[in-house]
């Protein structure tokens, strides 16, 4: 069951990263992309998500009950939640590093994730804190 749980966590993490890349590409949130080219970023998202599903379901039999090798509902939920949170943190951090060269201060009137259209999460977060300190 430990191996199954590990596989499920990796599958959830990679699929969430892919889903976030697709969402970033679709919503023009370039600061969230893993690569500087938008089209390649979108394709990378599709590849990550589809690849995660293919790997998980084709690598071995997954139709197993929790009384054998499978996962119970609550453990499945907890593992997915952890994987999704980790994927979000990883996406925010990694995209900030990759895009750090082209990031610049967002305008003061741009609030929330809208700022990620032109800058990275790290830069946008610093701008938020600076703005709060000023006011």
């Amino acid at each position, binding site marked *: 069951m430990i191996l199954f749980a590990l596989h499920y966590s990796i599958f959830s993490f990679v699929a969430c990263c892919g889903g976030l890349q697709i969402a970033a590409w679709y919503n023009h949130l370039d600061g969230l992309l893993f690569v500087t080219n938008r089209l390649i970023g979108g394709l990378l998202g599709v590849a990550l998500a589809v690849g995660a599903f293919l790997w998980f379901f084709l690598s071995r039999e997954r139709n197993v009950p929790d*009384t054998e090798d499978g996962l119970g509902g609550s453990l499945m939920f907890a593992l997915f939640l952890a994987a999704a949170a980790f994927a979000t943190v990883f996406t925010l951090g990694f995209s900030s590093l990759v895009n750090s060269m082209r990031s610049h201060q967002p305008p003061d009137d741009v609030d929330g994730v809208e700022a990620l259209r032109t800058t990275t999460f790290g830069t*946008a977060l610093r701008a938020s804190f600076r703005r709060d300190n000023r006011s």
Partner: protein
Amino acid sequence: MTRVDETVLLWLNQWVGFLPWVDAALKVLISDYFMPVLFSITLLGLWFTGLTRQLREINQRAVWIAASSMGLVNAWVTVMNAHIFRFRPFVDHDLPLLFYRPTDSSFPANPTALAFAAASGAWLGNKKVGGILFALGTLYSAGRVYAGVFYPSDVIAGGLLGIASTAFMTMIFRLGEPIPTIALRIMRRIRLA
């Protein structure tokens, strides 16, 4: 009612083995992991979706309602299962199965309840995404009946419970104002919403 239930179940289940590639695809689609992860990733993506701040906020509220109604309906089904027990179709009928033999109650169908809670929650924010999730939820539910692990009435009850939990959570979120608005404002400040 039971007769209709059995007739529909037996009619659907008779096709198992007729097209092996359909069975192979359905075994993956109706597994415990495919649809739940697909639905959850869709909700995660919907959080960031919206070309304007207003549209994104509508989607984010819908994601909150969907996620909380999934939790709520899961609790409802757990309580119901403790009081109502219905044997799985394969106990009373000799059926070819596409799935392992679950030992919990057949009524109401928990996977369907979760799928329809997610779909109806998403539909509140984005009709297109909600519609796709409803279609996938219907395929998921029909697939489980086809596979011989649920009666049609189990999945219909599960679906209705899922939608009811979304309606309930929508009301709770409205009554809970301005807490959701304040929470969204804080998340926007740290660039997460």
